């Protein structure tokens, strides 16, 4: 059951992203990486924001509704109003899913506070998140031209083997389509059976304090800026902790600075900086006659978006492209020698080895996250994760939540390699 739930989640994700992507189907990252493709594009769509709330209607969720006046119920009540108040011309659709998914109108959605909502035949036996991605293939027919965010409200239990399935579904249907994933945990009172555990389901009832609450999750798919706006709007509610919102986007940097200088002393002996005619981020050097190059020092400072994951600087990747003769191709003329984190950012030592003849050699230099686990899992994820929650231990935590987040981050890194900084370099070889 767990396996299938995970698979369902994956399918939901795939569908959600697929739905979103249908409307905002972006091509694969363009060949030319412009500066605007390094930083997050802050522009918003002009159309109406459409939010699809997909409620996990399986019995594990009844525990959140069973207790009186839970945060979960408040969210369900207030979600539409918050969205519509926070966004002009926003529309909210409701779906319930489990083994299948179907759209519900608001009156039925309101029945989410009743146990029968979570025991609908043909739906309650399994949580198939993948179904969310297939919820409504006629989005375009609805005539909506605004941005659409899919919000899956679920308690996100999963096994090891299902993590891959769900991650793959999310990767395929969201991350690979320039779509961002957002994870927002919300702590709520719980009175029911905890199913996402390696042991049999155990009963759990929250106490008065928030430390006894269990988390449910808003898994979001869509445009990262819209998602951030939505979370900003939701954070007007006390139960929404904005600092626990994790965004897994294709681009993580709001702005950056880069400065490239020749290395001091012997390393840079054969190079001299020359005035660059380009704007910020463009540099020019001259290589002396009979020399092949030298060392360059690049200093990069970045500002990540608020909810974006930070990255391990040592796991950044450097790639140089030659743009000579209007063609862009990867080149080994420039290579990364060392990369260190500094107080303000990064310091990289690059080696220029130019064996060609006299002339001008233009390059594009890109710093991006490596493919292998460059992101750091936020510490709050660990506080909600457990590899073996039981009634006596980690009863308020979600099974393998950290692994889930980790794999999503790795999938994003492997797929998108979010860029961190870019520079244009012109090398003049003197003869």
């Amino acid at each position, binding site marked *: 059951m767990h396996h299938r739930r995970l698979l369902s989640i994956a399918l939901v994700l795939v569908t959600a992203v697929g739905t979103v992507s249908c409307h905002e189907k972006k091509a694969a990252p363009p060949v030319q990486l412009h500066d605007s493709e390094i930083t997050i594009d802050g522009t918003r769509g002009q159309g109406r924001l459409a939010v699809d709330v997909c409620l996990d209607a399986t019995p594990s969720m009844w525990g959140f509704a069973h207790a009186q006046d839970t945060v979960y119920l408040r969210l369900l009540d207030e979600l539409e109003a918050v969205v519509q108040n926070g966004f002009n011309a926003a529309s909210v659709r409701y779906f319930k899913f489990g083994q299948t998914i179907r759209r519900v109108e608001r009156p039925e959605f309101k029945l989410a506070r009743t146990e029968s909502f979570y025991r609908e035949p043909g739906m309650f036996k399994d949580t198939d998140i993948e179904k969310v991605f297939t919820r409504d293939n006629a989005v375009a027919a609805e005539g909506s031209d605004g941005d659409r965010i899919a919000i899956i409200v679920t308690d996100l239990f999963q096994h090891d083997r299902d993590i891959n399935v769900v991650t793959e579904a999310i990767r395929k249907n969201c991350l690979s389509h320039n779509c961002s994933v957002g994870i927002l945990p919300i702590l709520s009172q719980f009175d029911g059976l905890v199913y996402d555990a390696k042991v049999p389901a155990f009963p759990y009832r929250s106490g008065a304090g928030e430390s006894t609450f269990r988390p449910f999750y808003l898994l979001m798919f869509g445009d990262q800026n819209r998602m951030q706006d939505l979370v900003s709007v939701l954070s007007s509610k006390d139960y929404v902790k904005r600092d626990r919102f994790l965004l897994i986007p294709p681009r993580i940097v709001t702005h950056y600075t880069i400065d490239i*200088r*020749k290395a*001091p*002393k012997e390393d*840079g*002996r054969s190079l*001299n*900086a*020359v*005035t660059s005619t380009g704007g910020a981020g463009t540099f*020019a050097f*001259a290589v*002396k*006659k009979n020399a092949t190059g030298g060392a360059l020092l690049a200093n990069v400072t970045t500002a990540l978006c608020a909810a974006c994951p930070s990255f391990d600087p040592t796991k950044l990747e450097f790639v140089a492209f030659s743009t000579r003769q209007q063609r862009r191709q990867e080149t080994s003329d420039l290579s990364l020698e060392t990369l260190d984190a500094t107080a303000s950012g990064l310091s990289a030592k690059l080696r220029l080895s130019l064996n060609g003849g006299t002339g001008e050699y233009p390059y594009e230099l890109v710093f991006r996250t490596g493919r292998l686990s460059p992101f750091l899992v936020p510490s709050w994820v660990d506080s909600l994760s457990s590899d073996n929650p039981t009634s006596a231990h980690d009863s308020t935590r979600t099974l393998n939540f950290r692994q889930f987040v980790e794999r999503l981050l790795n999938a994003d890194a492997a797929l998108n390699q979010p860029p961190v900084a870019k520079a244009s370099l012109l090398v003049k070889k*003197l003869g």
Partner: protein
Amino acid sequence: MRKTPLNYFASLAAVGIIWFFVAVPLGNYLGENVVLETLTTEKFLDWYRIVLGGAALVGWISCVYWFFYGTREANAGNMKGACRVWNFWFVGELIVGVITMAVFVYLYLAEALALVDYAVIAMGASLLTWAFFWLCTWIMSPHAVMYCVLGRR
């Protein structure tokens, strides 16, 4: 060429030509060969040309003063005094040359210029200061004082 104001203009043309050759071809040679740590090549050359331009201006002014001095009636029969004046201005130009080099050393302190680079710059500075003064006064001094120039005495 020794008549005023022809020598004023001739010396101005001469210093302009010398400055051009020192600033452009020689400057370009330096720009391609010096090792710069912090400055761009263009910035290096800008300073190089500006400072040498200033030195050249001082050199030309020295020559103009000497030419003016040599045409003054009061100085016609006072060779001792006139030669003292020439010596003073020549030494002054030597000092200007030294100051010019000091300015270069200061400007390029953070750079990694080799001794030979400074030697080349010193040659350029000399051509625009004391060597220029000497050459110009050798060729263009008014008759009354032309034999005060070192080498002609």
